[in-house]
């Protein structure tokens, strides 16, 4: 844990200074997880603030400081999940939804402004985002926590309150769907190259 249990206890009892210290300790980790969960840099801070606001309002419901980190992860996942659902409802035009030509044009424009490495990172983000679009928001969050964040099944069990076997099944199915999307994208790229 990045903070000690006493600080969490104080924050639970309504000590704003203690809560402030907790936010300062965890904000980078939370923002990083959100960045990987939602994949949109410009909205990361807003979602992060939503997480800490929810933490502030629900801290008194925390049974013991030992489960603070899974609790915070759960709030992070829920906030990211709500964000992704809203985005889907809005039907916002995203880079991943653009045609190949539009992506190339955007990349070309971006490469003039950014370094090559940055362009490559952007492309990776967009590509993985487009693959993750093959699964539901909930499965996407689960897959990112496991495969990208590197959380163990035990940690996921604490976050989701679901047994390990159920998690394994869900993860396997989600991964299979993403693999299928990857195979079809590779197939489409290969046939595009042949033409």
């Amino acid at each position, binding site marked *: 844990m990045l903070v000690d249990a006493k600080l969490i206890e104080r924050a639970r009892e309504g000590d704003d200074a203690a809560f*402030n210290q907790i*936010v*300062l300790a965890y*904000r*980078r*980790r939370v*923002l*990083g997880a959100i*960045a*990987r969960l939602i*994949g949109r*840099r410009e909205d*990361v*801070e807003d979602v*992060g*603030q939503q997480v*800490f*606001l929810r933490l*502030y*309002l629900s801290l008194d419901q925390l049974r013991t400081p030992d489960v603070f980190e899974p609790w915070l992860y759960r709030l992070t996942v829920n906030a990211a999940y709500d964000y992704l659902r809203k985005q889907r409802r809005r039907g916002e035009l995203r880079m991943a939804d653009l045609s190949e030509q539009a992506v190339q044009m955007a990349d070309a424009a971006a490469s003039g402004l950014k370094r090559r490495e940055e362009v490559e*990172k*952007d492309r*990776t*983000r967009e*590509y*993985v985002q487009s*693959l993750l679009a093959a699964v539901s928001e909930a499965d996407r969050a689960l897959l990112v926590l496991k*495969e*990208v*964040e590197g959380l163990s099944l035990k940690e996921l069990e604490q976050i989701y309150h679901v047994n390990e076997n159920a998690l394994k099944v869900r993860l396997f199915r989600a*991964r299979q769907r*993403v*693999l299928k999307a*990857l*195979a079809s994208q*590779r197939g489409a790229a290969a046939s595009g190259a042949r033409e």
Partner: protein
Amino acid sequence: MWNDELHNDSAEELERELDRLFAAYREACEAPEPSPSFMPRLWEKIEARRSVSYSFARLSRALITAAAAICLLLVVLQTTSRTTPVFYTQSYVEALAEASAADAASSFEISLYEVGGGDHYQ
């Protein structure tokens, strides 16, 4: 069999490719540096939510107080109306007894009249 091996190879290759992509994605999505306005904006949101909760709590308290006052008023009215009854002061039996006593008295008067005034007609 050759096809199966080819299929397995390509499946394994896809798995490896996906793992590589996830690793690259992690690199590409490094934690952004929080902006200087992160904490002030967070506290603004907390304060805004607190004031909404505070107003709601005040409104709830006011409504509870008003409801209690109305209940009290109703109880007082009920009690007052019981101590000064407007309508029935007697029970049905009492009223019946009183009425039959009055009837008996009037029939006695009639019989006296008949006894006294019988000669008049004769």
